[in-house]
């Protein structure tokens, strides 16, 4: 029961948390003046007329960072149960973790040597 209650709390929190920022924004909408015109609503790029599509071409480097992060994220998440149970594991558990982290490190070293970590 207690466990369910904890998550019920989180559930209610998720449902309520949106209200706190929503209320002042709604209040501002009611209170603030609203006189839109074309110039005011135009895209703000330091006063220069905006040229072309907003969706400029991005560098692939952003994707590479996202990719390395994804791999690390997944691996670290699986280290959490390992770390949690660590005090109850024997030396084999340490070596299992060591090998796991070794592969992770391998990937990092590869990315490093291939200059995939450079912001070019």
């Amino acid at each position: 029961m207690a466990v369910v209650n904890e998550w019920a709390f989180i559930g209610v929190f998720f449902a309520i948390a949106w209200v706190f920022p929503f209320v002042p924004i709604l209040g501002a909408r009611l209170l603030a003046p609203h006189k839109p015109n074309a110039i005011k609503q135009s895209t703000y790029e330091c006063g220069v007329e905006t040229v072309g599509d907003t969706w400029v071409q991005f560098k692939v480097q952003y994707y590479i960072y996202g990719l390395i992060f994804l791999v690390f994220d997944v691996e670290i998440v699986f280290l959490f149960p390992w770390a949690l149970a660590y005090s109850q594991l024997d030396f084999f558990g340490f070596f299992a973790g060591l090998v796991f982290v070794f592969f992770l490190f391998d990937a990092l070293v590869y990315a490093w040597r291939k200059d995939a970590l450079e912001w070019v």
Partner: protein
Amino acid sequence: MNDVCSINNLTQCLLDGGVSPDLANLLTILGGVVLVATVPLVTVIFLIWIERKIAARVQDRLGPNRVGPFGLLQSVADAVKMLTKEDITPMGADKFIYNLAPIIAFATVVLIWAIIPFTPLHIGADLSIGILYFVAVASIGTVKIMIAGWSSNNKYALLGAFRTIAQLLSYEVPLVLSLLIPVMIAGTLGMQDMVRAQGSMWFVFMAPVAAVMFFIANLAETGRAPFDLLEAESEIIAGYNIEYSGFKWGMFMAGEFMHAFTAALLAAVIFLGGWWGPFVEQVPALGFVYLGLKTAVVYIFGLILRSTVPRVRIDQLMALNWKWLVPISVANVLITALLLKVVDAIGLAPQSGDFFAHLPQTLVLLVGNLVLMFGVATVLRNRGRAQRLVDEAAHPVEHEDAPVVAGAVGH
């Protein structure tokens, strides 16, 4: 026996008042949620004042001092001003998502407060996966930046958002890696248990490297100097929230201030022993004071850092993360794991909960951490020296203290 209804016995109180059990439960939870969520809302008003005041003092200014005593009500005045500011939605913006982003920005920070143990008794929800909850909620934070940047229909916003996401993603790796170490030592993911495990020894003494990593990564995650590239006014004019105005912009700002404070709070909970302090077990309410003090130390250190150091370049930012913080964190995890097993094998693991039982293990871990720090410092020094030699070979410097005199040329 329950004459006074408080939040601790609200359920029983309502049941006595003849309310159905389900409703009583719901009302209790609702009361708790509102209570926990209001704390950050009130805090943020003072946080902004503290931040401005400290930044002003560091820069030899006075800071806000007009509205209210010591300018305390400046933030309230700002909030009122923001309420009456016109809220401009740019043309071509994706309306629904554009309005959703500031709400997510603020809500995700409030949500972290659900798992923070304030005292031995007061915690929103003592989840069994507390730390992972924090990491998960924090990772939703990238979504808000992505949708804010994309929905504004502005090149600068989009570019800023992408830079920011790259930064946040990168620094999440050392952040989460450094959290592995307290989990390993305490053997729990729950926040309340994590604090209890620090009863006789704070984790900052057992894992100083992890604590430093956590602090640095959090500076970057909250976008504080020297990592404030996400609002680099002089480079990408405020980044992802450039098109926001009025209270929506205010929500981003309030969320950012609160996130910085929440990060300090978490550092205090995870590494500085949370609510532990003298007599806290007799008077649980003292936990608020101790936690507040510890948080203030971390927070104000961050603030002073913010107002003194210059911003790093984005390539330096990425290099610092991937070439220094991540390898060090990984090495730290392995060293701590090995030492813990060694300590266990030679029988130095703490048998009881008092201070002296924890001392040997702490010393071993501390020495391990110091060795790691020394190794890093050595590598840094050697690299710096090599770089300096290369630089000097490329651009020979004429030292002013040793002027070249005519007769000395022949040497």
